[in-house]
């Protein structure tokens, strides 16, 4: 659903999984949420595409804002 936590979540995921970047070359690391909101797909500079299952689908009602902030906070602990 969202691609907003680009730097924050990408970096967090990168740190936790040891995917630190070697440089800041273009397009070295991107990520996106799956349409059902349960997983994150990352594409990193080590030529690997990883699937992270973040959480089971949250029950409504949640506004987009709630979900985004919740996701940001919870992912980081």
């Amino acid at each position, binding site marked *: 659903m969202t691609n907003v936590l680009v730097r924050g979540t990408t970096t*967090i995921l990168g740190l936790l*999984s*040891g995917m*630190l*970047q070697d440089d800041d070359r273009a397009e070295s690391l991107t990520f996106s949420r799956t349409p*059902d909101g349960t997983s994150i797909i990352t594409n990193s500079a080590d030529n690997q595409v990883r*699937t992270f299952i973040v959480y089971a689908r949250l029950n409504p009602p949640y506004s987009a804002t709630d979900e985004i902030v919740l996701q940001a906070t919870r992912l980081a*602990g």
Partner: protein
Amino acid sequence: MLDEGRDPHELTAYSTLPAAESVNAVVTYPMFDLQDPSTTLILSSQRDHPIRLNSALTLQLVASYPLVNPTTEAFISPHALLFTADGSRFLAGSESLLSIFDISRPGEGPVSCLRTGRKRRSSLAVSGMSMTGILSALAIEQQSGILAAGTLNRHVGLYDSGGQGDCVGVFCVDGTEADLQIGGSGVTQVIWSSCGRYLYIAERKSEGAMIYDIRKTGQLLGWLEGRKALTNQRLGVHVSSSPGTANQEVWAGGTDGMIRAWWNPHEGEGAQTVSFEQHGHNGICPELMAMSKVLIRWQLPYQVQPCILQHRYWQVVRVLRYFRMSMMTPSEAFWMAPAVQPVLML
């Protein structure tokens, strides 16, 4: 994952899909549902290989779609991929070329190709209906079916019928008033508003994002300020709206680890300031978690000396543990530790 706790959660990858070459683009199947493993598909393009459709869970190769240069017979690697809403087809953007594949025809080439421009001067170039360069961003407006395609040369083209129709128009974001204020060096994302009227354009090395009123005026409407995205990496922007209302929220992450939002930026002209911002992390070391390695490197020169003078060697251990820097030498970790010293002292 939703449990409370002071320490960061360990989130390891469920699956890892290796690639022999760099992966240029990845998209997920629009019907992706974790409850139905047959839909958990990811489409990826890597250099010198066909486009691949894999299961995100089992990594099984479901299908491949070759995109071949007819002259050199070399594989073309798209820099942008986009599924249609029903998932039956996908679009691939490469060097001045837009290709459309039928997902039900594995092993076959595109069902249609559209060359967006030619290097040589042509009648298309004169009429402003042509653009050259790598297609780096694609988005389809669901109601009208107009495809917006952005290039790393800072052009945006609009195409009818989801990319299978005629070119509606091409415009360049270089030299606009927004460009002078927020800069940019290549379109990395194009997003339609839910109403289909506005087009948001995000670029690399840009301090904001542009808003174009496509349906009414066809002109630049305004731009978002303060995105803090002066990097070559793709920093995405997300546009959300409440169902049944005209309200729009634009969310973006910055290189400083902040999440920013702009409420209804389409309602005004010119520069739009940030409405809301928050750290991406609320844990023990908020700044540290959100920082990138690049930013830390920037901070080194002017923060290294105080730490050395005060012999805060424990920070080296802490940073090592935090960053899982097993690949770093102790010397490198030592020199990086002072860079985050102000944060660790909070």
